[in-house]
């Protein structure tokens, strides 16, 4: 067992099953992330004109990459937060494994749908999709949506469990959401202050539950259509609810990943980790401001009611202040003059803030209706969400995984591995800059075939992708040194 200092989690025998399942979640997400990254490289090589894929295979790979990345990173983030929650809340290994199993059903069904069935429709579902593609049959479309169902139900089980345990610990939902902190007056008795991870878990579990119900509201009619009970699903209805489900799942991943930062930053800065009034307010606003922006995907759909477009616009801009002021500036203030110990996890956190800032700026610009008129179907859109993911979510999540393995095994990182973390940042920044420039240059998104004049920017991106892979391999090599020890230390004791 590692030498546990005051800033390490307390790992008792009763915590081991939770830490084991946390590792499984994170490692599963990590492996899928790596494979999906290779698919991403293939798409960039295609756009560079260096390895031209057939359109059918490009779109299959695009479908796998998109669905796989979102599902993988959400799973990894879910695993990270339970390792932190485990310190203060009693979790159930049985519930968490059940969620993992159901969620993981998405993997084989996605592979069957795309690799065997030929499904290449991305995650959108507007009629005649998903069942009447030219190169795939209905069964492949059904399997694709079984994938979504598996992710949704698995995530729902997880969210319900986290909602329940944090509610029980706090003695009610209002206390778990830190309303006593928000509405406390000086004369009041000491308000109940949940841990930041508990508050984050409660907020994101509420988001998750609503999101999944949104998904069920679109998946149910889609399955009814497959069964012949409906001729087709109204495209506007379908798109609104698919976006509520898919966009919110992707968006909530960022906030679950941010919860890892609140858990990790105090270890390296010896500051922070308190549920202040402002932190509590921000997490409460997050519940509304993650669920209301999805209409910003339908600005270009003329049939969309104007009111929904305005809601999407207002919500997309409203979340920026709390993210910027509280999470980013607030956490940067913990870092400033703290003498922060620079290690792989802390470097990744610092990089992640910048990724979030630039992704957020890109997203805020694109969520303005006049700008969206120009940028909607360009690479600007994937640029902003790749910024959130590549230099936001992944840095927070893999930084936490690196820390967790090191702490569980007692194997300290090599000093030189920090260089790999910085290289990851540089590689990510270069890759993202190319995406943004392509979007600004009106290069379209979701096009398999690129005009020759668009190839250059993609060609510039490829070396950055390769640098990303190199830096990740370096980090993985260091992480692997502690993996067997971490696994062993979270194993069940041998029964007599």
């Amino acid at each position, binding site marked *: 067992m590692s030498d546990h200092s005051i800033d390490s989690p307390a790992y008792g025998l009763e915590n081991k099953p939770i830490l084991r399942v946390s590792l499984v979640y994170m490692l599963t997400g990590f492996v899928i992330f790596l494979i999906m990254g290779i698919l991403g490289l293939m798409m960039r090589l295609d756009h560079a004109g260096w390895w031209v894929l057939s359109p059918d295979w490009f779109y299959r790979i695009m479908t796998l990459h998109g669905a796989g990345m979102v599902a993988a990173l959400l799973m990894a983030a879910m695993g990270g937060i339970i390792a932190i929650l485990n310190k203060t809340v009693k979790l159930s290994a049985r519930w968490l494994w059940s969620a993992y199993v159901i969620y*993981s059903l998405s993997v084989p069904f996605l592979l069957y749908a795309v690799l065997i069935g030929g499904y290449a429709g991305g995650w959108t579902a507007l009629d005649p999709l998903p069942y009447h593609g030219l190169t795939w049959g209905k069964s492949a479309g059904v399997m694709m949506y079984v994938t979504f169902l598996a992710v949704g139900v698995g995530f729902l089980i997880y969210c319900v469990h986290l909602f329940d345990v944090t509610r029980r610990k706090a003695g009610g939902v209002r206390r778990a959401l830190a309303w006593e902190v928000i509405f406390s007056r000086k004369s009041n008795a000491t308000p109940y202050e949940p841990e930041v991870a508990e508050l984050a878990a409660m907020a994101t579990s509420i988001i998750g539950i609503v999101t999944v119900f949104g998904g069920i509201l679109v998946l149910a009619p889609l399955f009814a259509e497959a069964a012949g009970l409906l001729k087709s699903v109204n495209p506007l209805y379908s798109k609104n609810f698919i976006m509520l489900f898919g966009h919110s799942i992707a968006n909530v991943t960022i906030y679950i990943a941010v919860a890892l930062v609140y858990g990790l930053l105090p270890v390296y800065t010896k500051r922070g980790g308190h549920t202040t009034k402002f932190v509590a307010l921000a997490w409460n606003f997050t519940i509304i401001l993650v669920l209301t922006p999805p209409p910003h995907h339908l600005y270009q759909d003329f049939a969309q009611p104007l009111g929904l477009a305005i809601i999407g616009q207002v919500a997309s801009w409203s979340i920026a202040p709390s993210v910027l002021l509280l999470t980013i500036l607030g956490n940067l203030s913990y870092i400033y003059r703290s003498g922060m110990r620079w290690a792989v996890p802390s470097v990744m956190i610092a990089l992640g803030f910048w990724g979030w800032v630039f992704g957020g700026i890109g997203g805020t610009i694109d969520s303005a209706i006049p700008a969206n008129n120009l940028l909607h179907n360009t690479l600007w859109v994937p640029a902003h969400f790749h910024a959130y993911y590549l230099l936001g979510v992944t840095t927070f999540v893999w930084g936490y995984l690196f820390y967790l393995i090191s702490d569980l095994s007692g194997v300290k990182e090599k000093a030189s591995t920090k260089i790999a973390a910085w290289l990851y940042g540089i590689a990510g920044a270069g890759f993202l800059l190319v995406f943004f420039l392509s979007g600004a240059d009106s290069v379209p998104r979701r096009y398999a075939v690129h005009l020759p004049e668009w190839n250059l920017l993609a060609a510039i991106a490829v070396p950055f992708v390769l640098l990303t892979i190199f830096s990740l391999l370096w980090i993985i090599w260091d992480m692997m040194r502690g993996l067997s020890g971490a696994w062993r230390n979270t194993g069940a004791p041998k029964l007599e």
Partner: protein
Amino acid sequence: MTNLNQKQLDTRSWKWEWAAWIAGIFTFAAAVLPPMDEFVDASFSAHMLQHMILTMVSAPLLAYALPLLYRNQTSSWFTNLLDQLTRPAVALIISAVGIWIWHIPFLYDVALEDEFLHFLEHVVFLLAFVLFWRPLMSNKAVGGYLKSNEGRVLYLTIGMFTTGLLAAYITLAKHLIYTHYAPLEAGVRSPLADQQLGGAYMLVVGTVAMVAAILLTLRDDP
């Protein structure tokens, strides 16, 4: 080496094993005897349902009843053999090979033409899946018994994938794989549609059975 001792064999009630034995034999008979046997000749999808009953219903029941075969002995050639065959990796390989080999189109079609081969096919499925389900059961375990949650999840996930991959291939195939059914009258469905339905039965029933097994065997304890 078996991990049983005489005290375990003597003191525990065997009633659940006997109940499982009776239920397993009954479901096996219901699957292979008429009228089910007659539907199988006419329809690929009915044939797949028959196989699902054998592997996902009869086999786990008989796997639970397996200790009845060694209830009077702690160590013998038979328990030593079971030791080896019920090790998770071995059981997985045997079940995967068993199911894939008999779904090779040529062999599948020939088995439908020959009564003995068809019977042999069913016996192979049944025995292979008795071995597959056994490592999940703790009653008088010999050989490999999967104690940890992650072990059970991994084992069943691999099992689900090996059978699921075959099922998905059959479901998504755009041509008739098993030509034995081609000359039969279309009836309600075309032979291809019936083949796809059969694959779907295999996929759905197999997935549901294995997921249920995982969820039932998960524990909170370390």
